[in-house]
């Protein structure tokens, strides 16, 4: 039973992560390869803030979200100066740089040994320790993230992000400060990725750099693309599919180590199949949105 709750918790955490990336890659159309870096910064920030600064977990997660939003805004400001493939390379560079820092700043991050014994949250006087106890808060936060994402999708802010994605000169000619909105998208995305990272750190109680690699960034991007870029439901479904797939492989008797490798093969195969059959993803973006009462045509 606790295994099932563990899987549910992972789905929740990855759903938050996929939704966070969808803001930058789906709505704003910026294919970022640095989401695992923000996820990691969030996780390490929470670990350090609870263990060394003695902050309660909830405050540590909030602080991590703010700090990561600031870092993401800086990364966004720098990387969005580049176009298309150069932008992707810039985010890749940040991902590699961050992983390298996690791995080599031994005094702070513990290096390859990581950080263990991360504090778990207390709610109403009870410390959450079991997978079952964690599932409620994680799912509640995943659902809240989904609501935030849906709100962005339907707001003027989301509309502007999509306009920037569709035609930047057109957006600028309407008076829209394109770089400001790209940086804002990065900041919000970074904050939500940090929320996922913080939850992961406090839930697993141990983190090391291998959880925040380039491959992880690529996995999250795959979830969003397969689910459907620009569609909040798609991001959640992508996270669900790609978290459940290795667990299902485990259930049919494939050893854990092999399952992890097969996961990569499944990722690749899914990408190819989706590109051929549903290039816009399983849940394509809703292009024509809800009507405002028009009283006209």
């Amino acid at each position: 039973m606790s295994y099932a709750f563990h899987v549910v918790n992972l789905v929740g955490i990855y759903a938050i992560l996929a939704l966070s990336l969808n803001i930058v890659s789906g709505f704003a159309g910026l294919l970022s390869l640095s989401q695992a870096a923000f996820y990691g910064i969030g996780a390490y920030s929470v670990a350090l803030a609870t263990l060394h600064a003695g902050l309660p977990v909830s405050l540590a997660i909030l602080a991590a979200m703010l700090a990561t939003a600031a870092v993401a805004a800086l990364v966004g400001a720098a990387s969005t100066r580049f176009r298309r493939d150069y932008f992707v390379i810039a985010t890749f560079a940040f991902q590699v740089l961050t992983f390298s820092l996690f791995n080599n700043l031994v005094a702070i991050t513990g290096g390859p040994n990581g950080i263990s014994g991360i504090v778990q949250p207390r709610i109403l006087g009870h410390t959450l320790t079991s997978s079952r106890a964690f599932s409620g808060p994680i799912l509640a936060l995943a659902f809240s993230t989904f609501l935030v994402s849906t709100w962005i999708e339907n707001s003027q802010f989301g509309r502007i992000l999509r306009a920037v994605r569709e035609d930047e000169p057109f957006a600028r000619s309407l008076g829209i400060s394109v770089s400001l909105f790209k940086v804002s998208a990065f900041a919000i995305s970074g904050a939500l990725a940090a929320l996922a990272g913080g939850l992961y750190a406090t839930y697993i109680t141990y983190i090391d750099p291998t959880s925040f690699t380039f491959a992880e960034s690529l996995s999250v991007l795959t979830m969003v693309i397969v689910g459907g870029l620009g569609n909040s439901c798609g991001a959640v479904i992508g996270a669900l599919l790609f978290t459940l797939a290795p667990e299902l492989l485990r259930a049919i008797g494939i050893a854990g180590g092999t399952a992890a490798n097969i996961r990569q093969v499944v990722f690749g195969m899914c990408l190819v199949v989706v590109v051929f059959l549903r290039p816009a993803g399983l849940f394509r973006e809703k292009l024509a949105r809800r009507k405002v009462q028009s009283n006209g045509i």
Partner: protein
Amino acid sequence: MESDSTLSVRSICKKYGGVVALSDVSFELQRAAITAIIGANGAGKTTLFDVITGFTKPDSGHVFVRHADATGASPECIARLGVRRTFQGVRLARRLSVLDNILLAAGGTSINRFERCGLKTPNCAVRRASEILAIVGLRIALDEVAGKLSFGEQKLLSLALCELGEPTTLLLDEPFAGVDAAVVSAICVLLRRWTELGKSILVIEHNIGAVVSISDRVIVLERGRILKNVKPADVGKDDQILRGFLRG
């Protein structure tokens, strides 16, 4: 500087490598008047638009919008100063609905701008857009994806969107290119409406007949220089203009 001037261009120069795109270009746009720019391909017409709207920085010279120096300002700043433009070919958020495009053009960067534009709510913005679309006889569903409209419809929509930003000056890059006679007359209706509303309009156009019929002044550009700045009636009479225009 005349008080009726909404936009003024002073001694603009722009080079791309060794190629002179604009050289000492100066003129003013008056309120409630249409100025047309004609010239052969490569004369510098679109570069001039790009310089005025901040998409290209001039090497020297100044652009004044309502007497404020806007030289080198970003396109978004220029747009917020009340200068809206269209592009050669149509630019829209193509994979967004007509409604989304309307709300973008009316709302700009924040929902508060609906109020600043006198469009109290998104509903008012839609009503205003519907009125403008009705004026040009465009009947399209608000939930239609903009990119799926015909070229003429997209062109009319992009022009209608310009008005939603409550601009004082409109720069239209070849509004009559690639559209049929019905759309041309619809665009002429829109241009007349804008002059009645007191807006300044600068039009790049190759269709000399249309230029003569709609404009109040005609500027002839040749190899980045202003060859003539004349009344439309004089365009057909001037051999130098015709030679300059037909060159290239």
